[in-house]
């Protein structure tokens, strides 16, 4: 696989972590309890840790991006290739948990396969990350159940989160050209093969949580091609603020 294409493949994976971590970072200090605050911060820290490993690797492969921070901070919006799901705002705790849960189930299945990548660096990152993500998935699934099967209000809010974000789930399994190439090279993951297990697992937890599985057949996509929702520009404005205002400095 060509270096530049491998770079694109890795960045596509890492952007999900970066953007979700950024969203969770906004919540720090504003959670519903100290315990949830600490747990969500922990998840954000894990995601940033993983992001750094991916970007450090990508930076080595890239002709223009020399450091992890160049990759993280100095691209244009169209060059970020995270799925739309992770950039959705922290509307309320039901949304936060729904976004986390819908991503974590995917993330775990993805890493399980990435463990077997022919690319040793990616396999090593996956080996470390999967332990962390197994905790993320437990945390978010438990909260889906707690809120779904808690009070009437929490049930309604949790359902709202799931229903609103459901339309972004299908994009998790969309394949880009780089991904197809990476699969051919034995490096990347054929996402469509994860789809069945994903919905099976998600539906199972939703059922346990007394929530209904949304039935809408309409899905949104675009993030993986760099076409984001209107929320993304603001997220990047915060993320890139220092690097854009004070270019070429060490921090």
């Amino acid at each position, binding site marked *: 696989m060509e270096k530049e294409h491998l770079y694109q493949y890795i960045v596509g994976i890492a952007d999900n972590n970066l953007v979700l971590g950024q969203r969770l970072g906004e919540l720090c200090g504003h959670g519903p309890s100290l315990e949830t605050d600490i747990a969500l911060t922990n998840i954000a820290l894990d995601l940033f840790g993983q992001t750094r490993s991916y970007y450090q690797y990508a930076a080595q492969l890239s002709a223009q991006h020399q450091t992890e921070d160049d990759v993280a*901070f100095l691209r244009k919006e169209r060059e970020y290739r995270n799925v739309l799901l992770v950039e959705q705002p922290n509307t309320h705790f039901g949304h936060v948990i729904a976004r986390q849960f819908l991503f974590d189930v995917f993330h775990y299945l993805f890493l399980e396969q990435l463990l077997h990548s022919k690319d040793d660096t990616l396999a090593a990152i996956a080996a470390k990350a999967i332990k962390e993500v197994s905790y993320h998935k437990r945390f978010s699934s438990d909260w889906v159940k707690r809120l779904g099967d808690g009070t009437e209000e929490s049930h309604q809010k949790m359902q709202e989160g799931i229903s609103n974000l459901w339309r972004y789930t299908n994009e998790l399994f969309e394949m880009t050209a780089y991904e197809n190439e990476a699969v051919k090279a034995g490096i990347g993951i054929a996402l469509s093969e994860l789809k069945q297990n994903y919905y099976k697992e998600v539906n199972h937890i939703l059922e346990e949580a007394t929530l209904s599985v949304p039935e809408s057949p309409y899905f949104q996509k675009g993030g993986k091609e760099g076409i984001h929702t209107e929320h993304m520009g603001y997220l990047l404005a915060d993320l890139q603020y220092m690097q854009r205002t004070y270019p070429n400095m060490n921090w």
Partner: protein
Amino acid sequence: MSDKEIKNLEAIFEARIDRDEKIEPKDWMPEKYRQTHIRQISQHAHSEIVGMLPEGNWITRAPSLRRKAALLAKVQDEAGHGLYLYSAAETLGISRNELYEQLHSGKAKYSSIFNYPTISWADIGAIGWLVDGAAIINQVALCTTSFGPYARAMVRICKEESFHQRQGYEIMLTLCKGTAEQKAMAQDALNRWWWPSLMMFGPRDEESPHTAQSMKWKLKRKTNDELRQQFVDQTIPQADILGITVPDPNLKWNEAKGQYDFGEIDWDEFWQVVKGHGPCNKERMEARVGAWEEGTWVRDAAMVYAEKQANKKVAQAS
């Protein structure tokens, strides 16, 4: 209990304090000792929790991934400190919810320093360096305090705080070794955080209403002014290494005393902020109360769910 019995218990208690024995939650203690400790430990816990806000303000905008992760971890440590301290206060017979209630109603205080805004990245460095530096001086003195749970919490907290302080200083060092614009950012942060940091040690000794009793109970080991002096003496050489200067024209080395002389704190500003009229008092309380109120449905759901699960277990067992 008769007056005589209480007097007797008080005498035993005072003797234990004099022998530097730790007082544990189940031991008898004078009511005033209990109340003073609830006040101080909860004030400390609230400071940790409110302190998450000014620093949290820069998590999304931290200038590098390394700094972002370090800042997140730091703010998370503060949440952890809040947890131990609330737990230590709970051993004295008050619940976390009651303590929150006191914070939200304005009855309980928290460190005034967190009512100042963080308006540049250098403020994150300055807070680590100065605010955590001042906090450590206060807290090291508390590691040997007479109340066991507080002293033990303090030992753990001090270790983490000293790590934060080094991290903050390292941010300042990086800025001061950077471009002129970065160094100016560092100087500006020092200008704004210096005096509020000195205020962290509280009023002058002669105006500190709780000092005498707190010294007697070994809740305090040194007076406010002694600790403030120690902070100045320790911090000025660090500013010299950075190549930036504290905003105090009266600061000078006193050879005879072997310490720095420094100017007078603006006590009007001190009292204004303590009384709730600092730059961010309103915002900080709104953020805390807002998080608490918006989180009510989540906490309620967790309680109801736990009850449902417990009932299911009972039903399965029978």
